[in-house]
């Protein structure tokens, strides 16, 4: 695992405009950064990332299977009571998932350590599935990279395939897509999935989350008053389950993507559950619920809210004292604690590997860098190659 400098493609900004990649620069700072790339060996990718990704994913599904049947655990996961049965039902019915991303700390050798599972609303999908793929094509064609260079990235292929499977599962030829207003990154991610859905032969109408309506018959509607039968929502379940339309979610009988059972996986309570069920697993970090904290022997712990996005509200504790605090609006539902395992540094950069799953298959990685040890939503995205 190396960080290698490389000349940027001269025309990449023009190309980004042409392809509608509008969030490569955020708040004046580069988000997409192609001044360097990460290089992995095939062995690093397959043995250290792909295999653990598949394995951890299966462990996570084992947690879902346990939690959906256990009221005490559902309580611990802070899932509202009225969703317990529907979540269990969605799990029993094996309602299909589209995608998720496991975040790992990986140093190029040794076991990758799971930081968290973004199972409900992962982003950086377009940059991973398409834009870094195009970067590799361009750089190989320009002779800047070896023709042997590959990339761990079958995301787009697998997304199209899985959208087609989901359409078959529900017998649908149209799938609504939704995200919040005023976020170019989320809109770009959803547009990408709409493009993938079109490739899969589906129509893919869009509606903003805030514009979703409730019909007199209890269905959700888009702005054209069309009933939303199936919805991909880039909006967290834990928000939806606490908002005004929460009581309408079950009666509306929507085919949800991600499915309701993802409420269990996108929840940071997953981490201490994994550690309880699979203690000492090489790819897991010791993790604790607040009331089990006395079991923790680690001097350095990361404190994470049960629900949070992009590093918000994450604190570093040393011998019980707060050393670093990430700001943010989360935490009212409680916290979990995870053993501190620093990210590898390359120069001044702290590097995080996001490992994608589409359905149950490993589908590629994204590499992000931050100048802080806690990866925030303004961290930079760098492409990678396998050589």
């Amino acid at each position: 695992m190396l960080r290698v400098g490389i000349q940027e493609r001269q025309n990449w900004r023009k190309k980004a405009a042409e392809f509608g990649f509008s969030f490569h620069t955020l708040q004046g700072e580069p988000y997409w950064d192609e001044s360097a790339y990460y290089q992995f060996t095939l062995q690093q990718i397959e043995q250290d990332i792909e295999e653990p990704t598949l394995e951890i994913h299966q462990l996570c599904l084992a947690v879902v299977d346990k939690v959906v049947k256990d009221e005490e655990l559902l309580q611990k996961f802070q899932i509202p009571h009225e969703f317990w049965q529907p979540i269990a039902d969605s799990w029993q019915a094996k309602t299909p998932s589209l995608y998720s991303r496991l975040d790992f700390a990986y140093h190029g050798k040794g076991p990758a350590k799971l930081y968290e599972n973004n199972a409900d609303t992962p982003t950086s999908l377009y940059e991973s599935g398409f834009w870094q793929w195009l970067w590799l094509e361009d750089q190989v064609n320009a002779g800047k990279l070896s023709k042997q260079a590959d990339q761990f990235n079958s995301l787009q292929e697998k997304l199209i395939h899985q959208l087609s499977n989901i359409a078959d599962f529900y017998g649908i030829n149209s799938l609504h897509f939704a995200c919040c207003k005023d976020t170019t990154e989320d809109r770009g991610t959803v547009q990408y999935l709409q493009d993938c859905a079109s490739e899969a032969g589906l129509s893919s109408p869009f509606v903003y989350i805030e514009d979703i309506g409730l019909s007199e018959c209890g269905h959700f509607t888009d702005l054209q008053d069309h009933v939303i039968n199936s919805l991909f929502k880039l909006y967290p379940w834990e928000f939806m389950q606490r908002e005004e339309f929460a009581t309408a979610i079950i009666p509306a009988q929507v085919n949800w993507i991600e499915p309701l059972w993802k409420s269990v996986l996108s929840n940071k309570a997953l981490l201490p559950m994994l550690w309880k069920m699979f203690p000492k697993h090489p790819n897991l970090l010791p993790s604790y619920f607040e009331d089990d904290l006395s079991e923790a022997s680690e001097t350095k712990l990361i404190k994470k809210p049960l629900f949070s996005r992009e590093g918000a509200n994450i604190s570093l504790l040393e011998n019980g004292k707060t050393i670093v605090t990430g700001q943010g609006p989360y935490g009212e539902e409680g916290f979990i604690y995870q053993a501190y395992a620093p990210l590898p540094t390359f120069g001044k950069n702290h590097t995080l590997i996001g490992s994608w799953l589409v359905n149950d298959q490993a589908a590629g990685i994204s590499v992000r860098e931050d100048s802080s040890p806690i990866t925030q939503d303004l961290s930079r995205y760098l492409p990678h190659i396998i050589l």
Partner: protein
Amino acid sequence: MRPVVTSYQGTPQRVTTQKPSQKRSSSINISRMRKGFSIKPLALGIAAIFLSACGEEKEQATIYTNADECAAANPSMAEQCRTAYQQAVEEAERTAPKYASAQDCETDFGTNQCRVVRNESGSFFMPFMAGYMLSNLLSPRGYYSQPMFTSYSGNSPFRNRWVGSDGYDFGDQRQRNMRVNKEVFKPKPTVAKTMSRGGFGSSVRAKSSWGSSSSKSSWGG
């Protein structure tokens, strides 16, 4: 009819050829991903209708105003005629345009052309089904049907036309036999009366106003 676009920039540009052990997507439809120079939506719509009209998936279809008319024309298929009619009636109830007032409905469809539909949450108005379109009635693989509407209103562009639930114009009402694209038989979205909006998104408003300077801030992760 929702236009079905298969390709709007010529043959999709495919890059790279498959290597057996490759860890990345073997091919990506680059033209699908291009946004900046794509054809304007209006032109795209026209092109799409043109494309689908030229497609090979054409079906012979006939419109009947009721099940008896269908049975008279296809004596051996009387039962299918009745079943298809009933299905079309149910589909009409689900997908027909719905109006809050009788007056609005009659403006579009003509005097006495609308009926009231009631359920537990109130009442609304929809046009009577004027007929149903049948295709492949004699095929052992099964038939297609869909409800047809027409307007008697002098103000309506649909006056004396056959119109599908989604407003697709199938031509003059005197015309009963036509060749149509298979797509027209695909299920139509249910149209509903929306009572309220904005019941999702409050967490974002609350968390945005918490003081983040970011105007972008993803709600994904």
